[in-house]
């Protein structure tokens, strides 16, 4: 059963506890110049998750909203599909996991990711890609990811993807507190992290131009032709080669006569 996390933006108070739990569980360095929760934090090789403080307009009033960012763990991830050494794989439990020992370091995953999540250890001599692994080792043991287990306001809910999605749908349909959009339900073909909110996702700084179709489909349309092109092309070239050679020979014979 695929696991997922639902983020309720209306419940987050911006304490940043999730980012601290992430650093502790994954043994990531604290860097004062790169805070993981602030008005302008950055995902880096040391910050696998961040919380951004956003001042947004709601019904004519300025209000604060807090947005947690991390890998959304796509159902059909672009990063995994473009990895030519299979260093990124989608697990049946939901997490999209990176295996550094297989990585060649081409950084195609960084280019392909629609959410710009994978980051690189630029300062290292033999660097790795870094991104949220959704605490896959914990999930495999039946536990919740580190960030969700420390959230004091229940802004993060961990559970089965199907049930969580149904739960989120029911929530946004009841009353008019929430806008009618579950971010992650359809984006890039669906993800294992969902967001619900009372202000538009565009205003919260989410990328909103992401195709609803899983991105690997675009490449598959081309790659599926490979066997046909290779075998067909091989046959065609061989036939052409034999034909043109024979034609030249006949032309020479005629000249000779």
């Amino acid at each position, binding site marked *: 059963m695929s696991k997922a996390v639902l983020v309720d933006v209306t419940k987050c108070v911006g304490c940043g506890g999730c980012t601290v739990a992430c650093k502790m569980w994954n043994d990531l360095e604290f860097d004062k110049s790169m805070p993981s929760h602030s008005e302008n934090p950055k995902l880096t090789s040391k910050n696998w998750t961040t919380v951004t403080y956003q001042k947004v307009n709601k019904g004519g009033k300025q209000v604060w909203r807090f947005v947690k960012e991390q890998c959304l763990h796509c159902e059909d991830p672009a990063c995994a599909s*473009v990895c030519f050494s299979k260093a990124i794989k989608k697990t049946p439990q939901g997490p999209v996991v990176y295996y550094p020992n297989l990585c060649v370091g081409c950084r195609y995953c960084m*280019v392909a990711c629609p959410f*710009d999540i994978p980051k690189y250890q630029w300062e290292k001599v033999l660097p790795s890609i870094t991104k949220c692994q959704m605490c896959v080792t914990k999930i495999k043991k039946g536990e919740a990811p580190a960030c969700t287990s420390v959230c004091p306001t229940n802004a993060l809910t961990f559970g089965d993807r199907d049930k969580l999605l149904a739960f989120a749908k029911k929530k946004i349909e009841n009353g008019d507190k929430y806008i009618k959009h579950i971010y992650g339900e359809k984006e890039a073909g669906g993800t294992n992290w969902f967001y619900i909110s009372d202000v538009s996702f565009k205003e919260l700084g989410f990328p909103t131009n992401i195709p609803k179709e899983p991105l690997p489909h675009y490449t598959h349309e*081309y790659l599926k032709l490979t066997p046909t092109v*290779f075998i067909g092309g091989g046959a065609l070239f061989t036939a052409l*080669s034999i034909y043109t050679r024979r034609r*030249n020979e006949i032309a020479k014979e005629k000249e000779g006569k």
Partner: protein
Amino acid sequence: MTKKWSFKLTPTRKILIALVIMSLILAIYRLATGLGISTNLNDKWPWGLWIGFDLTAVALAGAGYSICFLVHVLHIERFKIIARRALLFSFLGYIFVLATLILEIGRWDNFWRPFISWGIHSPMFEVYMCISVYTFIQLIEFAEIFVQKFSLTWYRRIEKVMPVVVILGALLPFGHQASLGAIYLIVPHKLHPLWWSSLLPWFFLITSFFVGPAIGAIEALWSGKIFNSNVNIKILRSLIRISGGIMVAYLALKVFDLINRNAFQYLFTGGLESSMFLLEMVAGIILPVVICFSPWGTTKTGMVTFGILTVSGVVLRGQDIPLPVLNGE
């Protein structure tokens, strides 16, 4: 007419040797310090100018396969005379690409992983496999010429596999030149609509095919000057005409694609993207086509101009496409 091997230090050679030494030092610096310090790449710009030049170099090294196709598959006899030159150019091109790619990837010690861990859903996998196998194929094609002078038995052995080798040598690059374009299929939301198209692989393929003869002609004209080995200018003319013809088809397909995707509107919006695209099309395609079919295009200067413009167009595109991708904000 046997010349003895001599290696005189001409000024050109001195400059080239200095360049080689400088790049060796830079390569060691890159390997010792990592990508961040040596290239200034960062999380916002994971791919830079370097990969642009790399991918362009692959396209330019297409000279080998397009001429191999004309000579060994279509058996157009009159082009046979430049087949070996094209092969040499191509072979050097691929060696250059492999060497720079090793420096470009972060985990160069892991370069062999994809041979074992097959990421078949990535166009990069096709590029990687094809480049590797094709470089080996070129090595055999090259060996055939090389051993001719030393060992007749080996020459006969290699000659036996040559029919298969030349077919593969024409086929593999067809596949990977297209795959090179397919690399960008996955970023429809990041690439500017003037460039992103589901036809990208085929655009890359056609480009690499027409740039081959253009490069071949420049090479023949310039090396002819230096080594006094003139290739008949009539042959070069008809070679360039082939390029020009394919470029007309390319241009038509490009226009059809823009209209089909409703992207024609972006053509004259001004700004960096539309100017670069127009420059690519006018200076890299339309102008060379005009030159190619004009009387001036039959002169040596005309042909060299044609070649330089065509090559510049491809180099420009090699930079244009990755730059907007990287600028994905």
